[in-house]
């Protein structure tokens, strides 16, 4: 049994089109996706913008309800669970976004942001100030942030450091699955490498399962075990990362590979 199974997962949006919004158009954002993800695996998800990557991750996160199909975690169909139980399970799933700045609350110190994240799993920590500070400092160290900065605000950090804060916040609830949606796309090369090293190290140390979404195939090749290629809401290819680079079979994968700028020495 796979750790996470997506069974024929589908999400259609209705869009009003035409001059007076009279015509209805169906956008098949995710169109029958079936995938098995093993525990501890890093799965890369690639595809052109608009192919449905973010919608798929929102379905997995239970942020939107599928039109059809289901998400099965360790053999349990999530849609069958009671609401309260789903809320409990949601802690197991955390997201990291491309733009750490807009996803962090500018008015909250690093301490408040992280303590809130930890408290979703350990609510008692709010009663014990020194335990809370210790837990936050530990979390900061885990992602390579100096705990001296615990009282600072997001704007006082560089882009790379803010992405570390966002990663720390995602790790606070001790998730089992992390969905990273373009987590390094906005960063400079040298900072990208730091964050990629961190994510890989964390997935090993904590046994995290990760879905890593990116339009940059060279980054995905480096970090992912397997790569799924998505086109118009469907998975059109799934291969070991290296194999996909060596012998892509779908036209979509070939096109994405051809588009990557190459260093010509």
């Amino acid at each position, binding site marked *: 049994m796979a750790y996470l199974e997506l069974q024929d997962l589908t999400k259609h949006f209705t869009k009003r089109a035409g001059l007076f919004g009279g015509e209805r158009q169906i956008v098949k954002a995710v169109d029958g996706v079936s995938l098995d993800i093993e525990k501890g695996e890093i799965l890369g998800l690639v595809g*052109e913008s608009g192919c449905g990557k973010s919608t798929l991750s929102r379905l997995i996160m239970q942020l939107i309800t599928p039109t059809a199909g289901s998400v099965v975690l360790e053999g349990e169909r999530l849609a069958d669970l009671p609401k309260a139980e789903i809320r409990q399970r949601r802690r197991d799933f955390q997201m990291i976004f491309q733009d750490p700045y807009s996803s962090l609350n500018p008015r909250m110190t690093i301490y408040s942001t992280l303590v809130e994240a930890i408290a979703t799993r350990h609510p008692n920590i709010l009663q014990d100030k020194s335990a809370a500070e210790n837990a936050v400092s530990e979390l900061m160290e885990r992602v390579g942030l100096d705990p001296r900065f615990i009282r600072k605000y997001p704007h006082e950090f560089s882009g790379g450091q803010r992405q570390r804060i966002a990663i720390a916040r995602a790790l606070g609830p001790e998730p089992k699955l992390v969905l990273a949606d373009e987590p390094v796309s906005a960063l400079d090369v*040298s900072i990208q490498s730091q964050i*990629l090293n961190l994510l890989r190290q964390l997935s090993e140390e904590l046994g995290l399962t990760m879905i890593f979404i990116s*339009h940059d195939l*060279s980054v995905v090749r480096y970090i992912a075990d397997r790569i799924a290629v998505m086109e118009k809401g469907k998975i059109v290819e799934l291969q070991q990362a290296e194999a996909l680079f060596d012998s892509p079979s779908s036209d979509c994968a070939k096109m994405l590979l051809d*588009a990557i*700028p*190459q260093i010509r020495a």
Partner: protein
Amino acid sequence: MPLLEVEDLKTYFHTREGVVRAVDGVSFDVDAGETVGIVGESGSGKSVTCYSLLKLIPQPPGKIEGGRAMFDGKDLLALSESRMRAIRGKRIGLIFQDPMTSLNPYLKISTQLIEPLLLHESLSKSEALDRAIKELDAVGIPEPEKRIHSYPHEFSGGMRQRVMIAMALITRPEILIADEPTTALDVTIQRQVLDLIKTRQDELGTAVIFITHDLAVVSEVCDRVNVMYAGRFVERAPVADLFSAPRHPYTRALQRSIPAMQEKGEQLYTIPGLPPNLAQPIDGCSFAPRCEFSGDNESCHSGGQPQLVEASPEHWVQHCRGCVEV
């Protein structure tokens, strides 16, 4: 003679934290029709370098402290605002990462495209509209005679990028400054935009100054490259040379940190430390504190900036004795 010749450009920002030396004595030139790259991490001064040439620096807090930028016999840095207006958007065009920086959301594309033509070329309105439709066609907008009457939000992201390029090129500028035009785009759209810039450049003979932090993009589009670090150009070389024989430790470190250059599963190389605070004066080589070749720093350059020296034909590097061989 080069089309544009920039010499010892210095742009500082006078802030409460001190004087930020954003551009600290930069020299480079651009020949007609070629593509010159400026590559460096964010905050290194790439945008400020180019905006200084067009008087687009907010003053205060910014101030051009010195230097010359000769374009067609005139020093751009010494031009009055009214004379600059005849050059900016006419003979030197500009495109950005976010097309909405140059497009007005409340005006139809037609109005925005013909404005520079009415302003600079005294065409009639219908002549200008004709030219604008041709330009949209040239950048690959389908049904241009219909789409020209749309507003910016009616275009997809990739199409908006094309409209911005059309707008920058409609006056047939001699130089196009492209400031990270593909940084936020996905690979396939990035590929289309890069190809489009190249095609139009070849058709019009425009020179391009291409700003980016992406070395792979640099290697594909540029003829010559300037590597910028902490407000200075630390290396300049023809593109093939820069990648086959990088000389400056910063360029070497930057190349080593590209994931595509490394084996899967191996720890990625990262540059230790952080770029210097530009509000503090930097003595000697700006990269020395992060440099892995400089050993005990004994032999590193001190006392002012290292000189740019021509280490091999057309390959210039800031000569820090500790770690650069020339």
